[in-house]
């Protein structure tokens, strides 16, 4: 407990220092980091409860973005409101993918699990590629481009929705896990699937619902980021990596930690981006941290 407290103090201190020295990087990083953790939360849920690293995670996000783009383009649907339609569609797609592929190999060797989500990821990307070609698509809405001035710098106002949404989604997940019967069952399955089965929990059903719900949750991040990104088939891949990076950094089962590490890495990325001539190096922040954290954890595990 004391270590966690120290970590939080260190984190807060770091934030204050960055906010004072580079306010733009601070706000921009806060927004990006919140978006990263918003995307990472479903991955962490699937990893924690089903024990499956879903390499197709980011591609479900891409799929959600394309569905939203079609709704906007054909029916003039507002991107944020289209969440209500994207979520059920993604739920059904997630359910179909889970039932038809992943469930069949869930009990076999862990290599098969990784390979199958890898295969699903490629299939999704190439399906999107052949349906909509690789031409980037954009969604324009006027309210997404407004900016406000804070402490003398101009910063996008719309992106503060990411911060609000990531906190809201985190709270909802925590409440569902703690308060509802399904949440408690899912928590128990995540802790010990065999024990959960013995006390009468339908483990198979919990896995199915968790995977489908987590996939449906991608609708939130998809509809929120839609007006601010170019949509193209390979968009999801880096988000899968970044999501896993945050989950590994926070540690399994530590959902608030994902938001915290997301904001930390978002700000670190923004700082590197703000150094002139080095903006291309910002991609290295996540991968560098991922490799360091995993290697550090593994070494500590080996000593124990």
């Amino acid at each position: 407990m004391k270590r966690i407290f120290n970590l939080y103090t260190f984190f807060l201190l770091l934030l204050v220092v960055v906010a004072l020295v580079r306010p733009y990087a601070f706000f921009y990083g806060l927004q990006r980091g919140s978006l990263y953790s918003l995307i990472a939360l479903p991955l962490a849920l699937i990893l924690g409860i089903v024990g499956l690293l879903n390499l197709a995670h980011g591609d479900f996000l891409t799929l959600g973005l394309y569905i939203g783009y079609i709704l906007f383009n054909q029916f003039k649907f507002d991107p944020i409101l289209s969440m209500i339609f994207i979520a059920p569609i993604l739920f059904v797609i997630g359910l179909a993918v889970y039932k038809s592929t992943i469930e069949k190999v869930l009990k076999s060797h862990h290599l098969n699990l990784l390979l199958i989500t890898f295969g699903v990821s490629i299939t999704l990307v190439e399906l999107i590629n052949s349906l909509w070609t690789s031409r980037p698509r954009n969604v324009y809405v006027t309210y997404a481009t407004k900016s406000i001035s804070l402490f003398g710098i101009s910063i996008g106002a719309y992106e503060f929705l990411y911060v609000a949404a990531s906190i809201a989604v985190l709270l909802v997940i925590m409440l569902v896990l703690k308060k509802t019967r399904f949440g408690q069952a899912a928590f128990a399955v995540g802790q010990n699937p065999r024990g959960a089965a013995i006390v009468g929990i339908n483990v198979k059903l919990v896995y199915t619902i968790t995977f489908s719900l987590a996939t449906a949750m991608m609708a939130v991040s998809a509809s929120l980021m839609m007006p601010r990104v170019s949509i193209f088939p390979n968009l999801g891949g880096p988000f899968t990596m970044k999501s896993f990076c945050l989950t590994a950094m926070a540690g399994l089962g530590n959902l608030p930690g994902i938001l915290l590490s997301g904001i930390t890495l978002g700000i670190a990325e923004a700082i590197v981006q703000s150094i002139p001539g080095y903006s291309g190096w910002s991609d290295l922040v996540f991968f560098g941290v991922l490799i360091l954290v995993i290697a550090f954890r593994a070494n500590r595990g080996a000593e124990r």
Partner: protein
Amino acid sequence: MKTLSIIAVLALAIILPFIADIYLIHVVSTIMIFMCLALSWDMMLRTGQLSFGTAGFFGLGAYAAIIAVDDFNVNPVMSIFVGAVFAALTSFGLGIAVLKLREMYFAITTLALTSVFTVLARNLSDLTGGAAGKILFNAIFDGDPKKTYWLILSFTIVVIVLSEIFERTRVKYAISSIRNDELVAKSSGINIFKYLLIVFVITSAIQGAAGAIYAQQYAFVEPDSTFSANFLLLPIAMALVGGIYSTIGPIVGALVLGFTSEYLKLLMPYGHLIIYGIIIVLTVIFLRKGVYGTIMEKIRSK
């Protein structure tokens, strides 16, 4: 019988440039490059570690070879060794940290390494030419497809022999016991880390050499196409289709998928890679031993 058929295949492979047209020579050369990648991926998989770093070390070798020729005037054939040695040294350094990881942590870290290499290649502009890449004045052997073919063929034979050495010597027992139960392997006195490191370095060197040859053949490197996910995806699909944990599996898989994909490219120019995704999913679900392994099992049981 077996030796006879091996000699027949080998003889056919050697005289192929005299009887085939340039298009076929080119297709077979490309297939052999992917065959080497598939074999190297499978050799790592035999230890129970799933590596997604194939494309990364492939690109690393390609860059090392092109830079060696362009900046240090190394002979193009020698530059293939430069690519292999560079990939081997890098994998040795990284392996010390990365090989303590298991399962998905190893897989995702190797995937992240590929991204790191890509970012480095794009941003170290003075050395790598940045996003535009580097173009050589001349391809290897002045672009003679027959000589290039024989070079790739001899490299492929080396890789096949290496894979067979792994299959037949006591390295195999060490590797398969690590894959089956690491605790048992450890208590039988096997130095797990040493064997993992040996396999990781050798397979990375193969991938680096393959990348070097491929880059010299086309005389250019460029971040997106050199580190392309194809060099990860196709070898995995090939090894899975042929059957993993064997030498013959990836060879058969590479031949089958390699020729099929040539026709698929003509049929569907956009998104023909979807077939590979579906193949991976289907083989993992239904044919655990791969197409070749399943067919051979059916034949034997009759």
